[in-house]
Structure formats: C-alpha cells, structure tokens
C-alpha cells in the first residue's frame, strides 16, 4: 500500500432535517452519517458493509459531492473536494465516478445506451463522433457488442446488461476512483458473478481503485481488500477482509459474519445472532449506538461513544471491550 491515500475522508457528517407541523418547522434530524473518517489507498478495493439505513449510500454520495456534507473534509489525491469551485469540481468528476444500484432507474429511458454512455464525454467537450466511438468501444469491453446493442433502449436490456451499461458509463471518463453503490444487489446470483468478474478484470486493466458498498457480506468478502463496517451512521470496525472474516472484533461484525447463511449443512444457524430491529437514526441510542442489541453491553457503553482503536495490523475497532488497547494510530 502506497503512503499517499487516493481518497481521504475526515469527520464526515450529514444530518437530514425532518420537517412537519403547520409551518414545516424542523422537528428532528436523521443522523445519517456521523463523524466518518477513512482512507482509500490506490489500487485497493475498500468494501463498506452494513445494514440498510446505516448510511453507506449517503457516504457514497457525500464523497462525490452529489449531496453537500454538513461537516468534514474529503480530499481526492490531496485536492479538497468539498470546497472545490464549479470548474474544479467538473474536472474532479472525471476522476471519481459512481455506479448506481438500481439498473432500471439509472438509465434515461429516452436515450440509446450508446448515447447514454457518450453523454458524459459530450459534457466534457469531446466531439460527437469521438464520443460515440469511445462509447461503443467501451460497450464492447463490458460485454455488449455495440453493433447489436448500441442503438437499443434501456427497456430492451436485462438488469445485468443495464448494469454493464452503467459500468461503461462510469468508465468512459477514465476515472481513477470508482464508487460502486450496491452494484449487484438487484441482480440474480448467476449474473452477479459475471458482473463481479467483469469489475475485477476492469480494475486490473485500468489500474482503478474501488469503493465497494454492499449489504451482502459474501460479495464484500469476495471483492474487498479492506473492509469498513458501518452501523447507524458510524464506522465500528475496519480491517483487511481476511482479518475481519477470521477474527471479527466488534460484536456487530461478529454477528454479521455469523449470520451469513452458509451452504454447509454442518454449519447451520440455530438462532439469529442479532435480535431486534436496528434502532432509528433519528434518535440513536446515546454513547455506543449498538449497545441496545449488544450481548456484551456494559454501563460505560451508554455514557459516550467509543473511539476507533487499533487492535492489530491495520485493524481498528470502536468498542469498549478493547479499551485497553492504544488509540488508533493511522486510520
């Protein structure tokens, strides 16, 4: 891992206001992302895993500045993203791209897929002809023969095919970082494997860096070098995929890995390791947000949120069970 991270996120925070009442006053806040900090190193795949509503999609949009954060910094290759001017932002967008989750809603039904991919290039000033050429080439690279599919409309493609178009569209600008927000969650298992393999090939070919977001642990394990575990807007554990799979430290991570259904008949799950519904991000529990579902909750867990502490090589946990360890040196 090289020393300079490609992406540095520090103290990212986003709370959404809830309005109601006669005058539509704000009566509560959804604390979607709270004090999130992490690095993404060049050429790695950072997986972000967590339940629905834990804030992972919001983090993705905050990084790319599709939503404005309340607080925190985002630096891409050393350059400040949050404070960038419109021009700089436009150039930054060439380097960071997003692949969306819903293959159906993420394509304009009125554009042919060729045009949809070419649009990004047109926005940045490429000529029509060249944009068309590069779009078609890329479509071929992701497995859609442009002569067969180029002039088709999204509604004529299957979910897996559409997701390939999304990938092509994200790659056409030659980005360095690709954020993938649940890119295979809407696809059948067999198709998932194909798309994941495509993503792996592309990453090697183009020296890409991935931030891969998913709620599916199997997928995360398969693709990631390092993993971030999020719960209710906060990071609770980070580490390499192997480290987390073999010795998860945080009770939540342990529960997550334990609840992944196994095809091995000798390892049946008797009871679900996690009980109860995830509490509300509008009114999260004080202190450690996981304490209400934690089998190891202690009195101090309610007092203040635990900080991320190092428990091994590049392995950090935010939990009072490991309070005796030294504070996390490098995140």
């Amino acid at each position, binding site marked *: 891992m090289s020393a300079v991270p490609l992406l540095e996120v520090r103290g990212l925070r986003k709370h959404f206001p809830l309005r109601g*009442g*006669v005058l539509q006053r704000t009566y509560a806040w959804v604390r979607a992302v709270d004090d999130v900090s992490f690095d993404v190193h060049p050429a790695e795949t950072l997986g972000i895993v967590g339940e629905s509503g834990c804030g992972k999609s919001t983090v993705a949009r905050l990084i790319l500045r599709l939503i404005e954060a309340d607080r925190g910094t985002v630096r891409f290759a050393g350059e400040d993203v949050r404070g960038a001017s419109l021009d700089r932002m436009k150039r930054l967008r060439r380097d960071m791209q997003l692949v969306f989750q819903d293959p159906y809603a993420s394509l304009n039904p009125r554009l042919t897929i060729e045009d949809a991919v070419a649009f990004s290039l047109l926005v940045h000033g490429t000529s029509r002809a060249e944009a068309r050429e590069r779009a078609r080439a890329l479509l071929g690279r992701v497995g859609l023969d442009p002569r067969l599919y180029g002039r088709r409309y999204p509604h004529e493609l299957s979910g897996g095919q559409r997701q390939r178009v999304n990938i092509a569209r994200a790659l056409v600008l030659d980005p360095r970082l690709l954020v993938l927000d649940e890119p295979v969650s809407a696809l059948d298992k067999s198709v998932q494997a194909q798309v994941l393999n495509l993503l792996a090939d592309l990453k090697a070919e183009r020296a890409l860096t991935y931030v891969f977001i998913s709620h599916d642990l199997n997928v995360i394990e398969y693709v990631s070098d390092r993993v971030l575990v999020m719960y209710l807007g906060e990071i609770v554990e980070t580490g390499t995929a192997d480290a987390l799979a073999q010795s998860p430290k945080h009770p939540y991570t342990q529960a997550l890995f334990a609840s992944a259904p196994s095809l091995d008949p000798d390892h049946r799950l008797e009871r679900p390791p996690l009980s109860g519904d995830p509490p509300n991000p509008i009114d999260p529990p004080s202190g450690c947000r996981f304490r209400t579902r934690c089998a190891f909750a202690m009195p101090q867990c309610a007092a203040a949120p635990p900080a991320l502490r190092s428990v091994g090589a590049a392995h950090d946990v935010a939990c009072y069970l490991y309070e005796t360890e030294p504070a996390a040196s490098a995140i």
Partner: protein
Amino acid sequence: MWAYVGRRLLLAIPTLLGASIIVFAMVHLAPGDPIAAVMPAESSQAEIEATKRAYGFDKPLPVQYLVWLGRVAQGDLGKSIATRRAVILDVRDALANSLVLALSSSLLSFVLGIALGLLAAFRQGRLLDKAASAIAVIGVSVPHYWAGIILIIVFSVQLNWLPAMGAADDPGLLPYLRHIALPTVALALIPLGIITRVVRSAALDVLSQEFVLALRAKGLVSRRVFAHVVKNAAPQILTVLGLQFGFQLGGSVLVEAVFSWPGTGYLLNLAIFQRDIPVLQGVILVLATFFVLLNLAVDLLQTLVDPRIARH
C-alpha cells in the same frame, strides 16, 4: 392531521387575498377613469366627491386596496351603477338561485357520472364500457350553451313541453321544476362527461391492482370487491366532484345566459353588458371566495377518506 388542517387553512388566506387583488385590479385595468367605472355618468359633483372619499381614489393604490378590502370584509360591496342598489343584496339573491341550479345539476351529473363510470370500469372493454365512454366523450365535447339552445329548440319550441325562460312565474314546486329542468340538463353535460371518465379511470386503477385480482381469483363476492373499489377510488372521485361542483356554480354563466336564469351568471352577464364594474367585482369576488372555501372543504374531506394524504 390537525397540522395539515392548519396548513391548508393558512394557505387559503393568501389565495383569497391574491384573488381579491385580482378583482380589485379589474377596476384599474378597465379602460378609462376609475371613477367612471363605479359611478353612473349623470352623478352630481357632490356624489362623485363622496364616492372618491369613500373609495379613497385620491390615495395611493395600496391604500385604496386596503380601504376596499376593509369595506368588503364588512359586507359592503359597493353600489350598482345601473340600479344603484347595494351590490351585496343583488349578489345574495343571485347566489341563492345559482346554488339551486348548481345543486340540481350536480345531483344529476354526480349520480349519472358515478354510475356510468363504475359501469364502464367493471365491464371494461365490453359494449357497456364503450357506450358509457362514448357518452362521456360527447358530454365533455359539448358546448353547454349550445346544448341549452338545442334543448330549448326541441323541448320548448317544437314540443312545447317545457318553458324556455327564467324562474317560474307561477308559484309552486311543479312549475319551478319545469323551469329548472332544461338548465339543469344543459349544465350537467360537461361535468357528466368528466366525472364518468375520472370515475372509470380511478376504478380501473384499483381493479388492476394485483391484490384485487387475487381477491377475484379467490372467488370473493362481487359486492366486496365493489365496496373495495369505491373506497379506494373515493379520494380521486371526491376531488373531481368538488371541482365540478365549483364549475357548475361558477361556470353557470353561459347556461344562465341562455335560459335567463336569474343567478350569478345572469347578473354577471348583465354587468358585463352594462359595464357595471361594482357588480362585476362583487359577483366574481363572492364566487371566487366560495370556490376557495369549497376546495378547502374538499381537501379536508379527503383527509377523512384517506388519512395518508395528511401525512404527506
């Protein structure tokens, strides 16, 4: 839910104020001297001066508006140029007549419209549906003033069954009904068409939902499905009924003109013809207020029928 009620009430106020501004502006939009718009030509100088002071014509426009608004709030809508009577009196009588016509026409169009619409939806694609839809399209395309004239030609001139004009001369229920019959039908045509179409479309939406198909597949009694359809289509139907009632009240101008029915439309027509601006203002303001309150009532009724609306 009360927050929603409160919000809607609050929203109605600027709407009413805005409408009043438009009505107020009419006087100043009309070509010529505003004084000429509110006073008969042969008024004495003293009368003109008194009116000037009462209306505040020498003051800046916003002040004039406020003065006028204040008087309106107290029920003073000015005096008619033509008759010199207080406008509020004429408007009150006319409104009563128009309400009767609107109510009777609404009764006809609502009952028939809902019946036809539901019939068409439940017999979708079949002959009954096509017939009902054809009636709806015809209803929506018919100029109601022309329909009135045709009705007069057929029922008054040719057949001499029903009178062609105005409110009854003879007292009693039957003559009144005879006089109101033709205007009612003429006014009901367009709303009939619109209501039929909306009811049909709303009912079809509910019928095509998967769980209705499941209910029907399970062999659930038709009456249950029917009740379910009505309940779920009710919000949309309610909205259109409210709108159409408003149309029949405010839009009765043309029909009243044809039949000389002494309602607000007739008054409006007369006022236009005579350039009687105070009457024009008064009628439009009263009708607009009525319409805003009507929409408010319909919206609030909606939340009773479908509580989801209030939760937004």
